Structures are given as structure tokens and as C-alpha cells.
């Protein structure tokens, strides 16, 4: 609270009264909006017990929501596992001393970072359908994972590059003084340290991946993730809005847990004495003036 007080003085009696007034007005406006939405939904009977009852019913979860959630997690998990090594290779490639490696890798990374994931998925879905013999059962998963890997591999390439560049120069110099080759320096000295620094950024990237899996049920991709997977459920009970709300809550809880985990990791790593001197975490926090820190990463999709 004391850090909060940079932008305003400690409130005196007048300011306290004024803040109270603002509070009351704000709550009133908020209550009006909530009331409007509530009654609007009420008129259409969206709060009727019948629409919400399925969610207390175990079979709803086992038949519709959990398989969908499992698919979502499967796509996200596969994507990160495949995108990590690709990202590492591309990131190291961009740091190569050889121009003929650096340039094309740079183009690839920039190209896939500029293209919407949805387009990548649509293309991948069509590509697998026309040119490969992959079973149509599993094709949507392939398309979803392909789109996610192409995009996130490029994003992670940048994360890796930033991680390696943020290490103190002495690390690379010392290892070449020991007579290690460039590859040995990268694999044995730089990468292990960079990965530790990058962990929080990678966990934050998981949030992005998880949110992007929600695209895979749309258009011509047709992957049965949480949103599309709950389609039959809404068909059964006609409870589209309640289902959407439940799906949103599931996503929010998952992502908040991931975000918590990322900041816990970051604190743990910051406290660790083993981190090399002079190394900065990839998503370094700025001085805390106004607020307790959380990841204000603007780049997330």
C-alpha cells in the first residue's frame, strides 16, 4: 500500500469522502450493467435450473466436457513438446556466425510470426486432407498441432535467442578460452543456462498455446476441443450460454494456475544463487514503483 501512494497523497478527510462517493457511483454503474445483463438473460430463461442442471450431472462432464478438455490439453501438450526443440534450433540458427544459415532462418521465423494461427491451421487441415493419407479421425488434431507448432516454434526461437543473448559475454569467452568449440559452447555452456532463465517465459507461452487451441474447433479445421466438443451438449439441452460460461471458467482457471506457476518459477529462479552474475531473466521486471509485479507481457496473443 505504501508503494501505491506514489501517484496520490494519503487521503485526508475530503479525499476519503470523495473516494467513497466515487466508489458508490462506480458500484451503481456496475450494478446497472450487471442487472441489465442478468434480466436480459433471465427473459430468455438462461438462468433456468434446467439449463444449469447438466453441470451437476457427472455424465455431462465425462461425456462432453472432459473429453473436450483432454483434447485441448493434448493439442497444447503436443504443440509445446514439438515446438520447443524446433524453437531451440531456429533460435540458435539466428545466432549463427554463417550468413547463409542466419538469413533464411530469420526469414522463416519472421514469416511464421506474421501469419495468424487460424490461417496456418486452415491450411494444415486442407493440406492433410488433400495430400496425405492421414486418417480423417486424427486429421484435425494434426492440423491443430501443426498450426500451433509453426507459430509457437517461431515465437520460442525469439525467446531462446533473447535468453542466450542475455547471458554475460564472459560465459562464452571463458568457454572458448578453455578450448571448447562453438557447438560445445552452445550445448554445454550457454543453452543450459539460457533454458533456466527462459522457463518463466516458456510457461507464459503455454497460456498462449492453450488459448489458441480454442481456434482449432472453428471453420474447416474441426478439432473437437473444449468449445466444439461441448457442441453436442448444447444440442442436447439447448444451454449454449451456460455452456459457454462454464467453458470460459475452465479456461480462466487453467490459465490463472499457469500464470501463478510462471511467477512462482520466476521468483524461485530469482532467489537462486546459482544464476550467473549479470544474467537478466528474459522477462525482467522493471523497478516496482506502483504495483506488485505480474507479467505485463504485451506480446501474448
Amino acid at each position, binding site marked *: 500500500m505504501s508503494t501505491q501512494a506514489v501517484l496520490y497523497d494519503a487521503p485526508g478527510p475530503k479525499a476519503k469522502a470523495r473516494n467513497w462517493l466515487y*466508489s458508490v457511483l462506480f*458500484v451503481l454503474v456496475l450494478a446497472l450493467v450487471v442487472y441489465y*445483463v442478468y434480466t436480459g438473460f433471465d427473459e430468455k430463461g438462461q438462468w433456468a435450473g434446467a439449463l444449469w442442471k447438466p453441470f451437476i450431472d457427472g455424465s455431462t462432464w465425462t461425456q462432453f466436457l472432459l473429453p473436450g478438455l483432454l483434447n485441448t490439453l493434448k493439442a497444447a501438450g503436443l504443440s509445446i513438446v514439438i515446438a520447443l526443440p524446433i524453437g531451440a534450433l531456429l533460435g540458435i540458427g539466428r545466432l549463427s556466425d554463417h550468413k547463409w544459415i542466419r538469413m533464411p532462418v530469420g526469414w522463416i521465423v519472421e514469416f511464421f510470426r506474421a501469419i495468424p494461427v487460424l*490461417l496456418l491451421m486452415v491450411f494444415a487441415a*486442407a493440406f492433410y486432407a488433400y495430400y496425405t493419407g492421414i486418417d480423417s479421425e486424427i486429421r484435425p488434431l494434426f492440423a491443430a498441432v501443426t498450426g500451433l507448432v509453426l507459430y509457437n516454434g517461431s515465437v520460442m526461437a525469439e525467446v531462446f535467442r533473447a535468453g542466450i543473448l542475455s547471458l554475460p559475454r564472459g560465459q562464452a569467452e571463458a568457454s572458448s578460452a578453455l578450448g571448447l568449440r562453438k557447438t560445445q559452447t552452445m550445448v554445454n555452456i550457454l543453452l543450459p543456462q539460457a533454458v533456466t532463465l527462459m522457463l518463466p517465459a516458456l510457461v507464459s507461452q503455454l497460456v498462449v498455446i492453450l488459448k489458441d487451441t480454442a*481456434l482449432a474447433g*472453428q471453420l474447416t479445421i474441426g478439432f473437437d476441443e473444449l468449445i466444439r466438443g461441448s457442441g453436442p451438449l448444447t444440442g442436447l439441452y439447448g444451454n449454449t450460454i451456460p455452456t459457454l460460461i462454464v467453458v470460459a471458467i475452465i479456461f*480462466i482457471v487453467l490459465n490463472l494456475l499457469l500464470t501463478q506457476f510462471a511467477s512462482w518459477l520466476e521468483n524461485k529462479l530469482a532467489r537462486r544463487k546459482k544464476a550467473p552474475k549479470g544474467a537478466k531473466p528474459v522477462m525482467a521486471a522493471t523497478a516496482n*514503483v506502483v504495483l506488485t509485479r505480474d507479467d505485463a507481457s504485451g506480446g501474448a496473443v
Partner: protein
Amino acid sequence: MSTLFDFLDNPNYDLLGAFWMTIKLTFFSAIGSLIWGTILVGMRVSPVPIMRAFGTAYVNIFRNTPLTVIIVFTSLGLSSTLGINLASKDSTTSLEDNFFRLAILGFIAYTATFVCESLRSGINTVPVGQAEAARALGLGFFQVLTLIVLPQAFRSVIAPLTNVMIALLKNTTVASIIGVAEASLLMSEMVENESDSLLLVFLLFAAGFVILVLPLGLLLGWVAKKVEVKR
């Protein structure tokens, strides 16, 4: 070359129109999210606890919901259930306009959280002395924020805001799921019908986005250098 792109002669494929729609979506959403994001950041650092709580809750909820869910909700929740209509009923394009505006509303609700978080980190880069000096001059919270802190914060976060805007440009493709005729909707249609020139179709649309993203990045990068506060 001309035979390669024969499929573009189909009058149903309005490539430029689709990308123009993408640009329109991005433009209006960008302006809206900058305004709403600034209001949100004001709430998050304000002396009124209930506003702070609202700002925090709003950002956490909307930032962690997939954009897909938000856009679907604008269509099913706001339009179908609440009967919110954002277009005049007697115009010929009433339906399209309504969904176009609903999509923009969804993008604003989502993107504003990232604008807010970027700005909040920007407020941290403003030296404490600035705010202290402003208070010493007797400025109130609102004046400190709008006259002293935010202008400096904005100048230091052009780079992260650029990333937010590029992400927004790419996110506008999600509008296709409620039938807004922008680039990705046209592409998925073309992919269905032009199976033999699939790669060409993809490269065409990819090129479109690259052409849109690159200048945006370069322009804003130049602006960032220009307005950066030298400390």
C-alpha cells in the same frame, strides 16, 4: 504466371475486399482498445479500492479467456440472447454491420487487457520523482496521471504496444467464426474449392498478412525510437 492465378478471376473471391475488412477491424479495434485500456490502467492505479479491484478482475478474466470464446459470446450472448443490435435496422447491410461491430466490441474487450498491462509496466519506467514532484505542485491523482505519468508511460511502451497491435491484426481472423467476411473466411472458402492450388492460396493470404504486419512493425518501431524518453 497468369494461368497460375486463374482462380482469382472468380467474381466471388473479393481478395482486396477481404483484406480491407481485416484492416477496418484492426483499425477500429485498435482505437477502441487503446482508449479502454487506458481507462483500465487508470482504474488499476487509482486511489479508489473498488475500481482497482474491478480493473484487476477484468484484466484477469478477459486476458485468460480464449478470444474464440469471447467472439462466440458476442454473437450468441449479446446478439441472440440480449438482442443487442449495433446497426440500424433499415439499412441493407444491417446483419453484416451488426456482426462486424460485435466482433470489434469483442476485440476491444480482449485487446484492452494487453494494452492495460503494457501501460502499467510503462508507468513503472517513469521515475518516482516525476510523480512526487507533481504531487508537490499540488496536482490531484487525475492530473498526476493524465498530465505527468501517462504521457511518459506511453512514450516508453510503444514497442510492447506494437506487439499488441500486431497480435490484434492477426487476431481479427477470429471474426470469421461469426461470419465477418474478412481474410480468413475467404481463405477457408477458397481452400475448399481450389484444392489443386492450395499452396498458392495459402501463400497469397500469408503474403497479405506479411505485407500488413511488416510496415506496421517498421513504422511503429521508428515512432518508438522517435518518442523515446532519453534517460
